[in-house]
């Protein structure tokens, strides 16, 4: 299991491939991988987004990401997990978050992946500030 916070851009597919390649013990042992990638769109709530700043609460963020992953592991049969979350300044089309789950079967891979992204969204302390044509604004929870 790996959890990373990054203050620079990342290629989610390269990260998944690299992580999987580093886990030779997984080879042949999993039947299902589910990956979710959240990406910054260039529009939101009717406005063009030029840039976004992601603020977080260092240490608390990692703690909650780990907790959510351990919860997923206790609820479903999960062979391995990788979570990467950006912070800092992002441009449209930049990946924001990656959640990858390796499992024996697709039911648990989908369920665990969905659980992690949903819980992350409400419990891991991150805040988005968008820069739009009408100035900066904090994104509000929907």
């Amino acid at each position: 299991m790996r959890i990373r916070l990054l203050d620079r851009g990342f290629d989610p597919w390269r990260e998944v491939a690299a992580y999987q390649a580093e886990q030779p013990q997984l080879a042949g042992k999993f039947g299902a991988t589910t990956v979710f990638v959240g990406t910054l769109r260039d529009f939101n709530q009717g406005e063009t987004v030029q840039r976004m700043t992601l603020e977080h609460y260092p240490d608390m963020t990692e703690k909650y990401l780990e907790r959510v992953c351990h919860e997923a592991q206790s609820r479903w049969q999960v062979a391995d997990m990788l979570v990467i979350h950006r912070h800092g300044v992002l441009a449209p089309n930049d990946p924001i978050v990656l959640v990858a789950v390796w499992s024996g079967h697709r039911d648990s891979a989908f369920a665990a992946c969905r659980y992690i992204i949903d819980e992350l969204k409400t419990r891991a302390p991150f805040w988005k500030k968008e820069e739009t044509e009408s100035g900066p604004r904090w994104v509000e929870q929907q």
Partner: protein
Amino acid sequence: MSITVRFFASIREKLGKGEVLIEAKGVSSASDVWDRVASTPIPPNTLVAINQEHVSLAQAVRDGDEVAFFPPITGGAT
């Protein structure tokens, strides 16, 4: 000892500060901490963490604690 108080995102901007230290004396809950550091009522939906654990505003605060106030979380994806 004292209590470390941290603010994030829109609350940090509104208060114009990210972190302050206050005396623990006379402070018994997270709610008391807010009243000590801010002159305005706590914004609705504000979240509170003590020692980096989500808690309620009524949660007891002790000397040495780190208390954080922040708006609802908006990480992750759409």
